[in-house]
């Protein structure tokens, strides 16, 4: 990523003008590898490069959306940021404090500020705990001289408070997770995240497991809570319509790297990375009048253990095909460069994207899965321990 050298330095923090306030979370060159051990002596033979040099800024009070296909590293990124996973290298700060440098007591203090809402409302709640313990556990762990959370009564009081905040009844605290529907469980998960009054919340696919009508309830709730408590979200999802609805700015990830990053209106109206174009084109639209010829990407995401040379997207890139396979795509890794207006792209030929070209590409595609039978024996899903 350093050799790109085309235009700007790739670190967006300087370039991103903050419209609505100061940066809260600043991530620079974050790297997270999962080592692969193999053989009799479990030698280290390589790494799954789940997150491979990612930099971005999340402003205070903002919803930063992170999209990409499964295995692109978006969940790993969120968890590394919260120190649920150790980072390999890079830095991240919250309000200027180094997230990765904290130890012991300081780390515990930090954890209060950063919470997570998980995707699976069933798997993320302990079936043997009543709701009061599920939500109260975090409070108990954080109990100290400054609060009364050691005391069961004050703890339960706060649990009840937060159940009401997420739209549940106070007396639900005595119940167990199996007594709730999927949407209610997700509300419990949200209450658990909020009970410690965090200012930064990672939402890891919070609505993917829910039905459409319930999904809208939870999205409304998340936006209400942001307003009420002044929260900042890192919103991870693969559903582009949901991300478009909720986010202020969006980063598109592909194979551990950010392919494009822009304010939401801009990204959806004028995508400047061929991968973003393909993702947007793939969304099925519920309005039958807008049926379109879709741009279908060939093959699957390559293995992050062995990413393609040069631009990681070049093996599936329709733009490269349209431009007659320029050599630079497979030899030189494009840096994330500034296109102005807070839009960043990691494509050598971003300026060449236009509607006409997209139409031509969509018309000329074949449906054959061209991935080679020999080299991708290890599918992404198996290689990336996405947890």
């Amino acid at each position, binding site marked *: 990523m350093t050799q790109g050298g085309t235009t700007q330095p790739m670190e967006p923090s300087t370039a991103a003008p903050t419209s609505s306030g100061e940066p809260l979370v600043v991530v620079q060159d974050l790297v997270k590898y999962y080592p692969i051990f193999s053989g009799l002596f479990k030698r280290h033979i390589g790494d799954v490069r789940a997150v491979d040099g990612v930099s971005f800024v999340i402003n205070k009070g903002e919803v930063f959306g992170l999209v990409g296909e499964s295995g692109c590293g978006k969940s790993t990124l969120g968890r590394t940021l919260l120190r649920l996973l150790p980072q390999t290298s890079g830095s991240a700060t919250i309000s200027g404090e180094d997230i990765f440098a904290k130890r012991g007591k300081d780390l515990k203090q930090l954890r209060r500020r950063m919470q997570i809402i998980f995707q699976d409302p069933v798997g993320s709640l302990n079936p043997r705990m009543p709701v009061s313990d599920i939500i109260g556990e975090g409070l108990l762990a954080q109990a100290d001289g400054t609060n009364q959370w050691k005391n069961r009564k004050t703890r339960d009081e706060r649990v009840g408070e937060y159940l009401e905040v997420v739209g549940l009844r106070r007396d639900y605290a005595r119940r167990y997770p199996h007594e709730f529907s999927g949407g209610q469980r997700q509300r419990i998960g949200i209450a658990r995240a909020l009970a410690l009054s965090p200012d930064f919340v990672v939402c890891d696919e919070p609505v993917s497991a829910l039905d459409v009508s319930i999904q809208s309830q939870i999205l409304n709730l998340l936006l209400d809570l942001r307003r009420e408590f002044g929260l900042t979200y890192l919103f991870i999802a693969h559903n582009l319509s949901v991300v*478009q609805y909720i986010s202020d700015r969006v980063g598109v990830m592909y194979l551990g790297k950010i392919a494009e990053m822009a304010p939401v209106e801009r990204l959806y109206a004028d995508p400047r990375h061929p991968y973003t174009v393909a993702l947007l084109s793939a969304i*099925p639209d519920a309005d039958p009048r807008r049926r379109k010829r879709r741009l*279908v990407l060939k093959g699957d995401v390559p293995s992050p253990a062995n990413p393609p040379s040069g631009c990681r997207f070049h093996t599936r890139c329709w733009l490269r095909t349209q431009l007659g396979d320029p050599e630079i795509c497979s030899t030189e890794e494009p840096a994330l460069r500034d296109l102005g207006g807070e839009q960043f792209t990691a494509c050598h030929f971003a300026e060449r994207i236009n509607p006409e070209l997209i139409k031509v590409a969509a018309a000329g595609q074949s449906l054959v*899965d061209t991935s*080679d*039978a020999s080299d*991708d024996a290890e599918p992404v899903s*198996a290689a990336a321990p996405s947890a």
Partner: protein
Amino acid sequence: MTVTLDRPASDAPPRADILLDVQDLRTYFHVMDGTVKAVDGVSFSVRRGETLGVVGESGCGKSVTALTIMRLLDIPPAEIASGRILLEGKDILRLPEEQMRHLRGNEIAMIFQEPMSSLNPVFTVGNQISEAVELHLKVKHKEAVERSIEALRLVGIAYPERRIKQYPHELSGGQRQRVMIAMALSCEPKLLIADEPTTALDVTIQAQILELIRSIQQKTGTALMLITHDLGVVAEMVNDVVVMYAGRVVEHGTVDEVLLQPKHPYTEGLLASIPSKGMRGQRLNVIKGAVPNPFNMPKGCNFSPRCPYQFEPCLDLDPHVDEGGGPAAACWLWKQAPGYSIPARLHEAQVRAALRAAEASQVEVSPVLAVEAAEE
């Protein structure tokens, strides 16, 4: 319980263009806590070579309907309480198991949601496809293998000769779903039932699979029953739509009718709760409450506790979708004022006005409503 509007079980000869005709199907599950009416009086039909979309949220009975058609449910605890499933005029619910086994795969095939758990991990992909081919088409092993390779090629898998020797875990999610489709299509069925075929896949892979299903359908003329909760997929793939809620069909019609002019408040609510362009900054529409408890269904209209337009007849009388040409909805509002589609936000006053208008134009009004209108 069900009032008047049920059509009588027709004994008319089947229409030639109808491949599958499901009539008043009821599938119940007898469990410890009582009886779950998972499918409760569902009727629809699939035309030859066309695609029918079955839409609904989890627990609405759409998958149970599919499994009933395939006769893959364990009886007991399941019970098919009533109904007929006519495939080209013959009732497959009456077929002996042996004939049904012949039919399955040969004439009706099914693709499941989870490509990983529906493939056997200890057999190669080729083994699993050729097993079906050998069984159903009564061909030699060698020919079956050749057919398997052909089927894999049809679903766009590169190097099928090499792929058939691989195991499911060696394939990616999209490739596995392609294998499932190849297996389902290997015996050239007349009807393909796809139960959420792309739900477990990424959006780019989903686009691949949908394009694939569509192109194969054009090539082979297979009819498709596509079960999904994704209205976007429906809009792109199907000709006709059936919307299910709590074991019932609440609305049916062509895709344009249902998606552009929803008649049932549930369909309207579903469409409105999808976040879309231009919704930013606004609150999303919400269907209040949750799906009713299957052991304790509301009286009258199943949807009435969640319905924003609910009025008196909804609480006592069960509206039932009536078959017979054109779009229809199981909704008293729609029934009282046919041709009246629900605008974005309808006030109760407007409902009454609509009803009065319907009355003025000599449309039959139920006694309940007639009384009510008189009171005003």
